[in-house]
């Protein structure tokens, strides 16, 4: 009997692996979507870029890994599928085909047998199974990931070396299944068994990846160099043609944007993002631009906008009152900030979720600066008396609030807001904090008003920001301490609804309710990306896609530009002899949103 049990233990894992695929799967693929690169792009050359600080580690997971450099590494990891940057269609990456299970929680993927790691090993189903094991391991020292991969993933199964299925925790719409449950592979042959030293051991290890570029040289504190793989397995695939053209991408560390801009003017950096009005109007001008050596580009995009603005902490006694919050919203002169220091380049953001297509409620408009209305609501809330400095008081308490913010470049914006809020009898104190400290203050829910923004998601995500499950406790994203039974119910309904039209209706309704509460006061949005590049940097006819946050990304959905090396030599010579070209100021309005 004991013997039998022994055999059972031995063969059980084998049994578990030899699952069979359901019979009625409808395999889908997509080889007909539009491409967005120019197939005639010239290959070769070096693209120079910069970052503000050297990454504290090359790990993309574990302590200190959430730094800006991580995106360069992650952009060279292929997923199972990706989303078309303009149409949002699903297009193949490592998976060539996909199919959906009847439970609305499972997706089946057929892996591309040609897919290779940068060390030459094939990517197989085991690499995906290993991802789950890896992400759940305590040794990676990443509790959020441990938890996420334990709670959100029910199962990852292997059918053969190139077929897997992923089952998530909750049912979702098709595209969301890919978005939320689409795993990447993790190289088991590289990591092997994890141990307690993992974090330390892998600080500076270059991990095999599946994307077009791999790190080829690191100068600690100075630069990181990525090189194009010679025979990258996906280089001739439909959606990769004409992309990833430069041989090398050198990312230098330049600790100050101003100094980086000088490097750019010298030609040591090929391109520069110029969204900030001060750079675009004041710095990017002069001979280099007038003589046509450097081209300026303004490119309208259409993508989810960051929910940035003032987050009012409703657990604070003053801010717990709805009329007071509405009064405050009417007293904030964002319009003046836009008209003055932002040079009319930014626009007023209207709602928490903007740019999410039908999911956004276009009827929700931000409250404009209106002192009469501010007065009406504040008076209604009982703020009827004034003290000697012209600040409203109620029951001996001053209407005085702190704005906590983290970027010193934004001080000029908030001083204007502060000056004009005084006219409504509101005293706003500016509290500039170091970014980490502000994050901590907000996560502890100790702020009055937090001036901040959230990164965008795939679809509006209400639960994390507005559900009472996340209110009144630290370390959650409900920083307004939103706590409303009615909204809770709608959020849960939204969360588990798989019918798109119903979800859209719910999303719009929720957006309106959030607006009514005035717990979030939207500030600004930018509906374009803009920048400048040396004339030797060449682009397809349309230099970006609907969702391009920058035109100068060498990896990810970017990588469409190429370098004309001869033109680089010519331009440098022309610059010496002051030969003039026609100045270029291009505006691309293909994806401009008209409201």
């Amino acid at each position: 009997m004991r013997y039998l049990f022994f055999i059972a233990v031995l063969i059980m894992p084998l049994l578990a692996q030899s699952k069979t695929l359901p019979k009625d799967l409808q395999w889908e693929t997509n080889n007909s979507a539009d491409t967005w690169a120019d197939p005639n792009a010239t290959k070769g050359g070096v693209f120079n870029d910069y970052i503000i600080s050297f990454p504290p580690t090359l790990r993309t997971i574990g302590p200190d890994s959430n730094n800006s450099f991580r995106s360069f590494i992650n952009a060279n990891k292929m997923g199972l599928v990706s989303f078309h940057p303009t149409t949002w269609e699903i297009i193949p990456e490592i998976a060539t085909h996909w199919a959906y299970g009847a439970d609305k929680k499972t997706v089946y993927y057929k892996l591309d047998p040609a897919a290779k790691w940068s060390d030459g090993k094939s990517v197989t189903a085991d690499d995906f199974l290993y991802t789950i094991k890896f992400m759940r391991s305590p040794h990676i020292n990443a509790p959020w990931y441990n938890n996420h991969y334990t709670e959100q993933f029910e199962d990852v199964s292997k059918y053969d070396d190139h077929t897997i299925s992923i089952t998530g925790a909750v049912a979702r719409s098709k595209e969301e299944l890919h978005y939320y449950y689409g795993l990447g592979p993790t190289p088991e042959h590289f990591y092997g068994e994890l141990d307690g030293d993992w974090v330390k051991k892998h600080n500076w290890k270059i991990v095999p990846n599946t994307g077009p570029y791999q790190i080829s040289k690191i100068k600690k504190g100075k630069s990181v160099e990525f090189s194009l793989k010679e025979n990258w397995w996906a280089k001739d695939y439909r959606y990769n043609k004409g992309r990833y053209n430069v041989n090398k991408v050198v990312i230098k560390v330049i600790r100050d944007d101003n100094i980086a801009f000088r490097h750019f003017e010298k030609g040591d950096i090929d391109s520069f993002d110029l969204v900030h009005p001060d750079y675009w109007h004041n710095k990017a001008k002069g001979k280099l631009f007038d003589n046509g050596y450097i081209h300026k580009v303004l490119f309208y995009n259409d993508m989810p906008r960051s929910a940035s603005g003032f987050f009012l902490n409703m657990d604070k006694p003053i801010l717990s009152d709805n009329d007071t919050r509405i009064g405050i919203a009417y007293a904030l002169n964002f319009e003046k900030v836009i008209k003055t220091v932002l040079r009319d380049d930014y626009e007023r953001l209207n709602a928490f979720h903007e740019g999410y297509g039908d999911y956004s409620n276009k009827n929700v408009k931000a409250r404009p600066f209106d002192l009469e209305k501010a007065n009406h609501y504040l008076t209604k809330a009982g703020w009827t008396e004034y003290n000697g400095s012209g600040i409203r008081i109620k029951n001996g308490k001053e209407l005085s609030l702190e704005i906590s913010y983290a970027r010193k470049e934004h001080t000029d914006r908030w001083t204007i807001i502060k000056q004009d809020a005084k006219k409504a009898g509101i005293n706003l104190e500016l509290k500039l904090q170091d970014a980490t400290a502000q994050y901590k203050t907000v996560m502890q829910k100790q702020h009055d008003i937090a001036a901040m923004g959230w990164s965008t998601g795939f679809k509006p995500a209400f639960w994390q920001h507005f559900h009472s499950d996340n209110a009144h406790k630290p370390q959650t994203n409900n920083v307004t301490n939103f706590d409303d039974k009615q909204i809770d119910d709608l959020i849960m309904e939204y969360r588990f609804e798989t019918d798109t039209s119903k979800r859209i209706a719910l999303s719009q309704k929720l957006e309106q309710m959030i607006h009514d509460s005035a717990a979030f006061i939207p500030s600004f949005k930018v509906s374009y990306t803009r920048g400048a590049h040396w004339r030797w940097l060449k682009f397809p006819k349309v230099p970006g896609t609907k969702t391009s946050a920058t035109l100068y990304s060498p990896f990810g959905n970017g990588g469409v530009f190429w370098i004309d090396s001869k033109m680089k030599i010519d331009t440098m010579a022309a610059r010496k002899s002051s030969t003039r070209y026609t100045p270029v100021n291009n505006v691309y309005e293909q994806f401009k949103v008209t409201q």
Partner: protein
Amino acid sequence: MSSFSPQALRRWQRFKSIKRGYYSAIAISILIVLSLLAELWINNRALMVKYEGAYYFPTYGDILPGETFDLDYKWETNYRALKRQFKSEPNSENWVLMPLIPFSPNENDFIEGEYPPYEPSLASGHYLGTDMSGRDIFARIIYGFRIAIVFSIFLLSVTYIIGIAVGAAMGYFGGAFDLFFQRIIEILSNVPILYIIMIVASIITPNFWTLALLLAGFSWMGMTWYMRTETYRENAREYVQAARALGAGHSRIMFLHILPNSISILVTFFPFSVVGGITALTSLDYLGFGLPPPTPSWGELLQQGTTNLEFQWIWASAVGALSVVLTLVTFVGEAIREAFDPKKYTFYE
């Protein structure tokens, strides 16, 4: 003058005879007085308003809401607009007397159709131009100077009081007490003060007092060494022994006998400590760890100037103001040092 000792008078004469230092001292005193009265000559509040027969003096005290002058708003009166309005009314008895520079340091003054920063111009009244958010640079420099100098003098008083007391006690008691405090001072001197301030600034937003006390807490040690050696020396003198023989207590000997005789060394350090204080505050503000915005500050102005080099008037104003004030104070310091130099009066027999 009669209460001063002949020696003090001689030093004063000597100081006066060093023209560069003497005139610098006068200039810096005038600057300090002017900055302390800044509200009277740089302000967006009027000095005096005559309206319907009544006189108003809005400079100090509570705000006067617009309704006071029958304007249709409750917030503080815009006196520049009021002045324009009274001027445009024919035969009006009403008038507004504005200060020389009619802007407050925290006020954004925007010109319709133009974007800040605005160039220096006589027409707009911004004689040194405005900063990146349209605030008058001259106003910010003067108010910034006031904060810097008050900060510096406060910082210096605290460090001197602690430094002198500890230093004198070390020199006077000597022995184990001296040894113990030497070690304490060595440890404290090795604490990287900038990091401490960065850490503190990330937890709380420092205000004037916390920042000054924090800095003082780590910079009182410099003075102790001089005071200690000086006390050691004086302690061995006959007058101290005489005082002791008469039964004077420790603190009486230290502060009434030894201190006055070693004051010269402290006085020579005084101006340089002022320079140190101003520089410390300016550099902290420059790095963003100083006083919270929108406090007018030279460091913050310098920071704006260096990130926007193309607007020369911003950095030029900050650098100019810093150079002038630091040079003046240094001149005063040199003159004091020379006036207190005993060599001039050393006689060889």
